[in-house]
């Protein structure tokens, strides 16, 4: 093969690669919607608010104070509070309400004060098996923390991986909105 032929083949290959790369980029660009401004949930000025979070401890829930940066959006507050709960307590003796890897999906706040939270744990069709106290610690950690810190939240509907269940672990009725339960609070 003479040098000219080799140069031609090499040039053609480079052109094909460059063309293919451009095509790939172009197709990818066309397949994605250009979103407008992100939802206002996390937009806007933030303020630091002091909240009381309720973490499972001993036989009930224990209060832990936190300062959270939140926007005026109620949904942002819901998300920040639940994120702090899922991240776990900073004080000793308390526990995180859900296992590591559990995340918060969609959040909705109805005009009647019902907050809808989609608790997600990829790869786990069911919430953790547990006794009734553990189930209540898990559920009311979220319900009590939200209702105590966000006046607009009166009750909470919890979904698991997008589905509203009859019960999380075989005791509590989670097929309906849950009202706060202050009896679980321990000093």
């Amino acid at each position, binding site marked *: 093969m003479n040098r000219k032929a080799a140069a031609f083949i090499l*040039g053609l290959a480079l052109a094909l690669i460059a*063309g293919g790369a451009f095509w790939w980029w172009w197709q990818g660009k066309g397949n994605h919607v250009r979103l407008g401004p992100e939802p206002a949930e996390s937009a806007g000025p933030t303020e630091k608010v002091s909240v009381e979070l309720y973490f499972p401890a001993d036989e009930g829930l224990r209060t832990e104070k936190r300062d959270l940066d939140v926007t005026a959006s109620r*949904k942002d507050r819901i998300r920040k509070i639940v994120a702090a709960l899922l991240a776990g307590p900073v004080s000793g003796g308390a526990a995180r309400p859900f296992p590591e890897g559990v995340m918060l999906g969609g959040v*909705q706040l109805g005009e009647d004060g019902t907050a809808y939270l989609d608790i997600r744990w990829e790869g786990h069709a069911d919430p953790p098996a547990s006794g009734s106290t553990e189930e209540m610690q898990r559920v009311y950690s979220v319900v009590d923390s939200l209702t105590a810190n966000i006046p607009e939240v009166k009750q909470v509907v919890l979904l698991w991986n997008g589905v509203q269940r009859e019960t999380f672990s075989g005791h509590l009725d989670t097929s309906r909105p849950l009202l706060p339960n202050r009896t679980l609070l321990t000093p």
Partner: protein
Amino acid sequence: MKDRRFPGFLALTLLVLPLLLAAQIPRPEAPAAAVLDGRELPLPVAINPAGPAFGLSALVNNLGGTLAPGATAESASLTLEGKEVVIGIGSAIITVGDSVVPLSQPVVRGEGGTLMVPVDFLRKTYGDVLGYSFDWRPESQRLVIGRRAARELPVLLDVVHLQGMTTVVLQFPEEPRYQIKRRTGAVDVQMLGDRLAPPPRHPVQDPFVQDVTITPEQVHIQVGAGLDVASYVLNNPFRIVFDVHQPSAVETPAAPMAPGVPSGGPPGIHTIVVDPGHGGTETGAIGPSGVMEKDLTLLLARELESRLSSRLGVRVVLTRGEDATLPLDDRAAIANQNKADLFISIHLNSSLGTGAHGAETYFLSAEASDAKAAKAAAAENAPAAVAPPPGDTKEEVKDLELILWDLAQSRHLSESQRFATLIQTELNEALQLRDRGVKQAPFIVLKGAEMPAVLVELGFISNPDEEKKLQDAAYRGALVDSLTKAVGRYKEQVEARPAPAAPAPAGNPGNAAPQPVGAVPHQPTPAPPQATPKPNPGHRP
């Protein structure tokens, strides 16, 4: 050589690249559109990883409805024929009326701020409310919108007066498109697109409901002056239910019903249903050494069955006698079917915190037994389809039974509390356990029980010490002994009460056959307010 070769490469690349691009870039196609009645309508479409999303405003303009900003900046409200759809921007859950509807992808803002919604959003809103169908055809980039033909739906009417309240049930084979209009002294259920096939007309003889008129266009319910009408829906089959009652009648707690006298018979405790918690695929709590709650509750329940029978001479029915999965509703239903005088659900506890120990006894919380809340919950859930047992007739599948399910335990709260207190006292005294007290919680297993019902937590298997003790047969025997004594004391109290003065049909027969484990009990013709199991709401673990 180098100097001569690279200009060649460059020239070739520049020559070939445009040709390649021209070949690769698809020919411009017609922009995406919606097709409605043969017309093409411009429609913004975004192809996202989770599927296509469509510009909502363009559809609202052509299909109707009102789209408005929501209560907050991150929400919007779509109103269709009086039904509100609350949209959380950025959220994959919407609410349609009272229903929460998870979507395949979040509703987001597209270019120009227009809301982009997935096709399941359209089906759950315009489809379910207004009867449109949506078919996305990606090859042609067309969203084909169809109009569902108007349906003619048969409707069944049931009017029952019970305990100072009249319940009107309209049952349909599938959910109609309708709206409820309220006027003074009347309620109309107006069809939206669908038509009704009225049943043969029968005069209504009821103290609260004067007349019910069904035409193809609507159901007209005429009620007495000054009465309140509450409405809600039940699913499978779809029913619209109206409770007609005196103002505040529903909110007033019903007088407590004594156990053992369901129909005016002699007071006593004749039949007890013992429910071993969890079972089968539902392990319940698991102790540090791997002991499963479901296994220990079964051992405890069998022991309790034996002692109650031998010491108190009562008939005892276990909801499950083996390691089997048993839905929660079915457990109370077995108690109802057997006309039990007491229902005891046995559990073992676990805690996320360390050091939790002791026993506690629960009865249903008032919030969970609140009629309106329970009905709202029923309306929010689309229960899984449950086929009626073979041989059922229409009369046997009583809507009323389903309605009363959520109310069942509310009439027994004070007796349940009394019984729970006796159990807790016995456990504390006999075992010197830490007194965790009598508590209330919205436990689903207690809701449908038509008799005093408790859930007793006999210790924490998450606590290594208690887990070890619970594996000891002698310790379990002591726990069961305490429960037996508590039942005995309660039985004495009940039997010491005077018998009701009014004669009544036969009371507790005490000879009904236990239901097989796992079977959905069927009650052919129960006397109200005996409840049978309602269809399973939602997903079960």
